[in-house]
């Protein structure tokens, strides 16, 4: 099902023409922003120097810290009187980032969300409960406007009061929900405890935090939904930037609205399809707060295979943040790749630590992983096999030789909140 079939299945040649037209418009809007005026001047660039996609390489990156430095309205390309809404995104330190929207932005954004909702099979016949924050966070109002635009019956339940959320799903015959994956699991447990039937549900949209295929199976089984991954960030409007279709193999990003680059986060060089790196986006339709080459910090890659659904190239599911990236003997390694490998091996638990050392000028990576209590049958040979299996699986994925230590269950540190599982000891000496 398509919301806007012509644009969702646009031919590459036509897409390039549209993207370049919109890129030129975006660059000319950026010329109203002090930050970009300064950057253009430093680079000896005039806005008219940017005509084609290839010219994009001449432009500087925009970083999250740049936006923070512009607090509150430094990145607005229009007068505040033309801004109809403000959202903020909280940083881990200091001031939040402020994002402004014109009436046109709100409309365009709702349209993108409507594409996503239609893509996952939702129609006027669906009742959609939006269980995310409706305040400054973009997930609430963003999805809400899109759901109304697509004609769904929107239930703006927001967060909290799980009992009431469950009653509404049951009483209103809710067919689709949007929440974080962890809240989804909590909801399922609470419903089971309350002995409430949630069988009206058929679609679950989960975003705002990364989640694994294991979590997908759990969500689908416990909630009776088909689970879809949703990606977005406030700087790029909010949710709805990229979304899974029913193939569940990567996320479609809307190429008419977002110009995509994948770069090596260390060197800034462009990477080709199939190469994992940091997602850099130039939004092509934003009016109030246009951005050029915005470094998302999120790690993904452009997938090489065409999607049977007929839409454009997809992004692989996100596997962490570029800040977490390690360079081991020149190879980029993301802790999430290690986690992914370990989760796929039932004989080890999901607690692990990664140590990086420099031994005789060579980087050495050591992984401590707890053996799974249930899978120990007393034989040393079994344990050696597990150790070799972990080493081999890691080598297949990372293309890197690692040392693996099996440790006793319950002995590795447990983390509340953000886990610090990587200890880089290079340079300690």
């Amino acid at each position: 099902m398509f919301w806007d079939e012509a644009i969702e299945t646009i031919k590459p040649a036509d897409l390039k023409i549209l993207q370049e037209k919109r890129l030129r418009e975006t660059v000319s809007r950026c010329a109203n922003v002090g930050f970009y005026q300064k950057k253009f001047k430093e680079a000896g660039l005039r806005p008219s120097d940017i005509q084609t996609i290839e010219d994009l390489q001449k432009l500087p990156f925009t970083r999250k810290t740049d936006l923070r430095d512009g607090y509150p309205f430094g990145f607005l390309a229009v007068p505040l009187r033309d801004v109809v809404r403000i959202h903020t995104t909280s940083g881990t330190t200091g001031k939040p980032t402020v994002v402004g929207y014109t009436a046109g932005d709100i409309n365009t954004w709702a349209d993108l969300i409507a594409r996503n909702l239609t893509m996952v099979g939702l129609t006027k016949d669906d009742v959609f409960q939006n269980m995310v924050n409706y305040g400054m966070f973009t997930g609430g109002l963003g999805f809400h406007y899109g759901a109304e635009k697509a004609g769904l019956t929107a239930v703006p339940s927001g967060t909290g009061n799980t009992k009431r959320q469950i009653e509404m799903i049951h009483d209103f015959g809710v067919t689709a929900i949007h929440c974080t994956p962890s809240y989804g699991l909590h909801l399922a447990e609470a419903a089971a405890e309350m002995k409430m039937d949630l069988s009206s549900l058929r679609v679950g949209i989960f975003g705002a935090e990364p989640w694994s295929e294991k979590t997908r199976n759990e969500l689908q089984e416990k909630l009776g939904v088909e689970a879809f991954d949703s990606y977005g960030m406030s700087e790029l409007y909010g949710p709805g930037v990229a979304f899974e279709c029913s193939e569940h193999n990567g996320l479609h990003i809307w190429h008419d609205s977002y110009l995509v680059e994948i770069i090596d986060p260390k060197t800034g060089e462009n990477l080709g399809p199939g190469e994992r790196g940091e997602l850099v986006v130039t939004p092509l339709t934003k009016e109030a707060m246009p951005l050029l080459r915005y470094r998302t910090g999120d790690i993904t890659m452009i997938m090489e295979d065409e999607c049977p659904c007929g839409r454009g190239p997809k992004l692989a599911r996100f596997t962490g943040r570029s800040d977490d990236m390690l360079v081991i003997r020149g190879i980029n390694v993301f802790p999430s790749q290690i986690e992914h490998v370990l989760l796929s091996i039932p004989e080890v638990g999901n607690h692990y630590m990664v140590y990086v050392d420099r031994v005789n000028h060579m980087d050495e990576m050591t992984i401590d992983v707890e053996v799974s209590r249930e899978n120990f049958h007393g034989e040393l040979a079994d344990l050696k096999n597990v150790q070799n299996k972990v080493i081999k699986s890691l080598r297949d994925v990372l293309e890197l030789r690692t040392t693996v230590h099996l440790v006793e269950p319950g002995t590795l540190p447990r983390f509340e909140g953000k886990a610090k599982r990587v200890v880089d000891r290079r340079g300690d000496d």
Partner: protein
Amino acid sequence: MSCEQYMIRQISLFSENKPGRLAAMAKACQEENVNILAFSIAEAEGFGVIRALVDKPDVAFKKLTSMGFNVAFTHVIAVEMKDEPGGLFEIASKLSEAGINIEYSYAFSGKNKAILILRVDQVEEAIRLLHSHKFTLIASESIQ
């Protein structure tokens, strides 16, 4: 003959190669008044398995598990071995002729004989074979 009675439960502990693990295990057994009849340690890179034959396997299992140890039971057999040259060969050759593989073994001195503990890949076959060749197998109830 029932093979069951000759199947002895050995406790196997997963342990990292770090100081104090064996001592912790031994201390726990002492506290629970569990007698360790024999033990051996098998090591790999960075970790190992402590194998122990004890008189109260269930008590030991419960205590060690509660301490966080990863413990499993393994079936072994114990057979009296002549305390003289060729004592081990006699047993090992019979098993190998029958195509039974010894995964590991260790021994301890019983009251007046040496006792060989064997972990084999075909436990029942080994028991029947050794029994038919008049070896003296130790029944589990006589020690546990």
